[in-house]
């Protein structure tokens, strides 16, 4: 059977599975809708968190991005995993003990202020919205590449599926479909990785193949002879200060992302919250330690196959032809010598252009795997995109329907009204996400810098101090969040002004050598310092708030603490 037939079969089976699981998990009350009735086991929550976390970009694009950056690609690897240590140690158990529905819930209650709640809700909506735009696009791209369906049709199919299980099942439906989606995406990622590892290193475990053979050294030497950067050498693509700042911003940003934090509300106990962070990072690490191996293997294989080979010979390779037609691989014989000359992408003499997405998408074919596996990768990419999109939708809709509508504007709303608004908000979110999927803003990559930068600079510091420093006051928190948010926002806009505002040159090149991706670290430091200092200059929080902070510290009695 052809790749297309297998892809259609696998997509239908997996989508059917998601719909079935979603239907089985339908809910009727707000606790089920927002926090899955707090009945999710630690392992299931770990798998759901991992699927929630790993987006279309992680699945399809990350190995490629790392292979372009070489050593410095570590910013993504460490940044997007290290945040879970912060979550497990500093936030998850205490937020679970606090036991409400959303992140703005904690900020609003802890800082006894509607304004703090509103600022946090707006941050949540903004961060989730920027993130979701890329997911629907990912769904459309996978559909169009593998099934030759129009991108718009692909986006609409994705919207219908997500809307179905997110509206009827809420957090519960999303959680259990994410567990199914994790299983599919990890198998789809691992199988081609094992195959290519066996082919190039003789070791079936990609992580071991990368570490204990000379493949990385060989790639590094090969790149050096072709005039590219040494692959395994640090700081050839990013300066040390940027590697430091980007890594730390992504770590802290990860721990401050609302759609990740709310997952820890869904488990029954504080202990489960800790363990589910452990499971989540274990599940994530399976993919994140494989990605750099795929990056090295696939890049070595590509360069080895293409560089300095006769053009006519190269063009006969079937995958060169296929991915060339898809626009992911460009070969042009600029100097007309009939040889493929490959060097730094910035060098005008370079004749090969490789899209980042090609690294993962082409691996099964390059490793000569069966069409079934190629189709499995497509299903894996869809699972990654859909699971992240659905998690973001719940985070966003709960910020609007629970925090803004119920807690601020209509505290007297009935259970039915709140469910209705929650479901309606999911639908509104799906439509906005779909619109962005069809009309993607020209600066999707910059937008991701926004999401992490803002989460690092606004949400993380005030939640952290809210738990560990009972003296933190609402004045401190509000001012800290506002300054962190404003500073980071303005800096990113100014540094990315060419793409965002359309200026000729960036208004600001960098801040003390730190670029837009790493600026969240500076915003976070401002937020922490201002919150801490202002809190000591203002009257202490009321006694009941200090009691609340005190209670959050002991795991005992999470059951009673839920009601309020």
């Amino acid at each position, binding site marked *: 059977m052809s790749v297309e037939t297998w892809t259609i079969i696998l997509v239908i089976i997996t989508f059917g599975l998601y719909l079935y699981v979603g239907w089985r998990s339908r809910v009727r009350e707000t606790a089920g809708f927002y926090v899955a009735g707090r009945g999710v086991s630690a392992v299931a929550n770990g798998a759901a968190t991992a699927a929630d976390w790993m987006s279309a970009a992680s699945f399809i694009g990350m190995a490629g991005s790392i292979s372009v950056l070489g050593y410095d690609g570590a910013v993504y690897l460490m940044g997007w*995993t290290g945040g879970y240590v912060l979550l497990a140690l500093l936030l998850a158990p205490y937020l679970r003990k606090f036991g409400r529905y959303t992140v703005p819930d904690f900020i609003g209650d802890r800082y006894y202020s509607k304004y703090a709640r509103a600022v946090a809700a707006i941050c949540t909506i903004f961060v989730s919205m920027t993130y979701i735009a890329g997911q629907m696009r990912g769904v459309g791209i996978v559909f169009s590449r593998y099934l030759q369906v129009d991108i718009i049709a692909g986006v609409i199919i994705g919207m219908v599926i997500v809307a179905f299980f997110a509206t009827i099942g809420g957090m519960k439906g999303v959680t259990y479909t994410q567990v199914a989606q994790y299983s599919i995406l990890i198998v789809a990622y691992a199988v081609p990785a094992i195959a290519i590892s066996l082919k190039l290193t003789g070791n079936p475990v990609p992580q071991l193949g990368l570490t204990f053979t000379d493949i990385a050294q060989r790639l590094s030497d090969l790149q050096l002879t072709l005039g590219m950067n040494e692959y395994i050498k640090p700081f050839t693509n990013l300066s040390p200060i940027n590697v430091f700042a980007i890594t730390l911003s992504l770590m802290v940003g990860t721990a401050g992302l609302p759609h990740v934090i709310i997952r820890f509300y869904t488990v029954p106990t504080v202990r489960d919250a800790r363990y589910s962070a452990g499971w989540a990072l274990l599940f994530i690490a399976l993919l994140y*330690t494989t990605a750099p191996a795929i990056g090295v293997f696939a890049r070595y294989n590509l360069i080895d196959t293409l560089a300095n080979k006769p053009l006519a010979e190269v063009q006969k390779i079937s995958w060169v032809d296929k991915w060339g037609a898809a626009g992911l691989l460009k070969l042009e014989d600029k100097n007309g010598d009939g040889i493929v000359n490959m060097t730094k992408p910035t060098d005008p003499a370079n004749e090969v252009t490789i899209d980042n997405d090609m690294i993962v998408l082409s691996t099964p074919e390059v490793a000569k795997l069966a069409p079934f596996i190629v189709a499995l990768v497509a299903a894996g990419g869809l699972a990654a995109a859909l699971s992240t999109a659905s998690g973001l939708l719940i985070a966003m809709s709960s910020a609007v329907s629970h925090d803004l509508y119920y807690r601020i504007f209509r505290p007297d709303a009935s259970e039915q009204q709140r469910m209705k608004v929650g479901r309606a908000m999911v639908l509104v979110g799906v439509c906005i996400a779909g619109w962005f999927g069809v009309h993607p803003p020209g600066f999707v990559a910059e937008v991701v810098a926004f999401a992490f930068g803002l989460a690092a600079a606004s949400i993380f510091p005030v939640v952290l101090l809210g738990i560990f420093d009972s003296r933190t006051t609402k004045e401190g928190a509000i001012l800290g969040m506002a300054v962190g948010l404003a500073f980071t926002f303005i800096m990113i806009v100014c540094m990315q002004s060419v793409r965002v505002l359309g200026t000729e040159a960036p208004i600001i090149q960098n801040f003390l050598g730190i670029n837009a991706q790493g600026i969240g670290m500076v915003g976070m430091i401002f937020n922490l310092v201002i919150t801490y200092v202002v809190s000591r200059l203002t009257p202490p929080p009321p006694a009941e708030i200090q009691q609340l902070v005190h209670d959050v510290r002991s795991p005992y009695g999470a059951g009673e603490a839920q009601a309020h």
Partner: protein
Amino acid sequence: MNEERLKVYWKKNISMIVGCLIIWALVSLGAAVIFANPLYGIKLGGVPLSFWFAQQGSIIIFVCLIWFYCIKMDKLDKEFDVQEVEATDKKGVQG
């Protein structure tokens, strides 16, 4: 539980968190960024040690850190008798 015991519990918890976070920073921001060049000369298998920390080791150690903390906290919770009973009203949560 009495106030004094809770204070001791909290202090022990904090020192465990601080210890884990020091390791967390050492294996990532330390080994892969600050000491990237000195560790580049040492080999682990076929790759420089700093490269291994940057793209494999830090992640593996992060996973171990969380599990270590979970297991340690289980013991601490038991010692201070603050483990919780399974939530009694899983569904009857009021927002």
